[in-house]
């Protein structure tokens, strides 16, 4: 993975000093609340329901074992011994003290980490496929391009005070889109032209939040050398023309929708034409330098396949389930990618204790070349594990509640921190997740249901991505009481991306698990053997589901 050179290291060291100074000026009254707000947000510091929350950047989800150990130490020393993986692959600490944040940043900087631009109206952490570099069907490794974008966007002087936040994701997979690029302000799909040059198909104006919109394609191909110039033009057009009168209409998606993609493209092209085209041209030297950080580890290639594990899986159903659910095929013979579930029943989805962090760091050193990844589904990944080692790894994980074999199932849900922590939330989301996980506690039944993405957001800001779940749950406030809207039919894949449709009036918290059961029952009763939940929703439409979940109320 990327290693800082002196320029990168100076940048984060100097950032610690800058932020320490800003914090001091706030504490001594030189900076007003209003003036400090964007400065602390650009450093990921929110003032939440219980305490300040610090969001630490994990650029495109890549972590080294020593970095995870540092996160564990920080959460022990400055927080309450746990962290939370966010849907932008970052880590959030829920109980930090504002005046200690500069010290935390100093510790982060010592392991090449930071909290730069993890919030605020600026360019946020670039996200990508958690299996980047090891997945099949990849046009190119997206991580070097993510790093190029990280450096370009870090402290970009022109784009620190945009109308609203700005999120970019990159996908390089031709089969799957694990980065949900069509729901980003800018989505980049890596492609090759007829001469095999790497470039980007560019999508713009997607997003979730209170106005979910699927991005539109603005370019079929932008050559890699020109991508930064292109992004600068998009950002400049947005910075100058995006709405600033209403924060709910300030995202680029509203502007693209209002103008239409053709008029928006014309503005971008006009800005591009006015620029010196050489100025931001990426150089082969720089790309080679960054690519060299992402070379494959020293694999011990072998012909061992998952079939070699049948002796153990035959007698050990727990291990068998885990192999079936939590293992992803690796492009290198003899290796597998392993997803560690942070979704054990009863735990807040995405939460991880400091003890688990330390264990995972050790396991990464032992089994996966000292590297690991976070996922936007709020899990972690060891991407390069020898198939021979899977059983010993499983034993170690199972001891620490990290081997829950539910990846891809209904219980592997995306869930925001909700009303338990977040100051913006209208309703709690963690207890809803728990109630559903308890309702669906039969693993064999869960496996029989197949892949179903269930996403929960505690408010319409949609941090839990409820719009793009097969089943989405949204917390709403009705005169001080928490209610939940249920939608079905959302989908974030490249082909057929769609936004879920609300079934009808919202439900009380104690009804949600029952409603989900009814939706699932209807699916099971109507499916053919080949059909997934998503297929059945498309074939039947919403009406039968609607009738089913509201039938009892009428009676």
């Amino acid at each position, binding site marked *: 993975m990327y290693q800082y*050179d002196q*320029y990168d290291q*100076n*940048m984060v060291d*100097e*950032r610690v*000093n*800058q932020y320490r*100074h*800003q914090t001091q000026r706030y504490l001594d009254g030189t*900076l007003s609340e209003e*003036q400090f707000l*964007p*400065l602390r947000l650009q450093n990921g510091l929110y003032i939440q329901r219980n305490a300040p929350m610090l969001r630490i950047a994990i650029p495109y989800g890549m972590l080294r074992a020593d970095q995870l150990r540092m996160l564990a130490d920080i959460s022990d020393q400055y927080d309450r011994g746990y962290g939370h993986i966010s849907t932008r692959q970052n880590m959030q600490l829920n109980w930090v003290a504002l005046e200690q944040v500069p010290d935390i940043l100093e510790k982060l900087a010592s392991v090449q980490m930071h909290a730069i631009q993890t919030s605020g*109206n600026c360019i946020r952490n670039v996200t990508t496929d958690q299996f980047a570099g090891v997945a099949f069907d990849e046009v190119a490794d997206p991580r070097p391009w993510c790093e190029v974008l990280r*450096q*370009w966007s*870090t*402290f*970009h*002087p*022109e*784009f*620190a*005070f*945009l*109308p609203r936040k700005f999120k970019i994701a990159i996908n390089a997979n031709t089969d799957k889109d694990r980065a949900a690029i069509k729901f980003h302000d800018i989505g980049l799909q890596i492609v090759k032209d007829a001469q095999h040059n790497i470039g980007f198909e560019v999508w713009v104006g997607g997003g979730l939040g209170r106005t979910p919109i699927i991005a539109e394609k603005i370019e079929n191909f932008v050559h890699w050398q020109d991508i*930064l110039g292109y992004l600068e033009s998009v950002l*400049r057009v947005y*910075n*100058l023309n995006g709405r*600033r009168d209403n924060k709910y209409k300030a995202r680029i998606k509203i502007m693209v929708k209002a103008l239409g993609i053709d008029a928006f493209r014309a503005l971008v092209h006009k800005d591009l034409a*006015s*620029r*010196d085209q050489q*100025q*931001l*041209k*990426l*150089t082969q*030297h*720089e790309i080679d*330098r960054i690519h060299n950080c992402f070379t494959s580890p020293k694999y011990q290639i072998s012909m061992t396949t998952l079939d070699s594990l049948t002796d153990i899986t035959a007698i050990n159903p727990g291990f068998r389930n885990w192999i079936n659910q939590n293992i992803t095929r690796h492009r290198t013979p003899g290796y597998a990618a392993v997803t560690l579930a942070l979704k054990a029943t009863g735990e807040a989805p995405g939460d991880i204790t400091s003890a688990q962090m330390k264990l995972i760091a050790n396991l990464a050193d032992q089994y996966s070349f000292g590297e690991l990844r976070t996922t936007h589904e709020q899990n972690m990944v060891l991407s390069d594990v020898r198939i021979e080692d899977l059983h010993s790894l499983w034993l170690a994980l199972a001891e620490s509640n990290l081997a829950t074999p539910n990846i891809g199932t209904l219980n592997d849900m995306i869930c925001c921190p909700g009303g338990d922590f977040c100051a913006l939330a209208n309703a709690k989301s963690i207890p809803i997740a728990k109630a559903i996980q308890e309702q669906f506690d039969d693993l064999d039944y869960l496996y029989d249901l197949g892949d179903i993405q269930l996403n929960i957001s505690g408010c319409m800001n949609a941090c839990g991505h409820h719009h793009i779940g097969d089943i989405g749950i949204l917390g709403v406030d009705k005169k001080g009481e928490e209610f939940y809207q249920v939608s079905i039919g959302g989908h974030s894949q490249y082909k057929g991306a769609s936004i879920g449709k609300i079934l009808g009036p919202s439900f009380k918290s104690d009804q949600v698990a029952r409603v989900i059961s009814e939706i699932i029952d209807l699916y099971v009763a109507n499916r053919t053997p080949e059909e997934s939940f998503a297929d059945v929703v498309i074939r039947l439409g919403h009406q039968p589901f609607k009738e089913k979940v509201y039938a009892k109320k009428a009676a």
Partner: protein
Amino acid sequence: MPKKLLKKGELHLTDIKTTGLVTTPPYMVSLEEWQAGETYQPEKIGVLIQADTRIEALDSLKPGFDFIGIQFNSFSDGRGFSFASQIRSILHFEGDIRACGELIADQIALLFKCGFSSIELPESLDEMQISEFVTPFSESYQSHLQSPAPLYQRVNR
């Protein structure tokens, strides 16, 4: 309201009025007033432009002014950063571009990188404090006032 002006790394106290004739220079008039063609005395005059102005509106900008002022009505409204960049890159204007209005010291370095050459700042800041804000970072990934090239073109990493 008296403000301090930061220009080329130095602090100067200056009394700035946004529109109309005043007896002591420098002062500013709006773009509309400037283009309307009245004659102003003395000649040190700035043209104050609102951040929502289109760059095209400056195509026929009358010469003879001392500087272009870009108005920030709120420090968190970042349009001025892009506007100044455009004035440099599209109009190739090489004179003084001044950031005017409600700015905070933490924006000084960003403003200079986007092409501003002078900045109005609150009177409460003193010279000692200002120096910390001019170069918070010894390098930057992007281009800056001293160099039009981004880091990857500028140095051999």
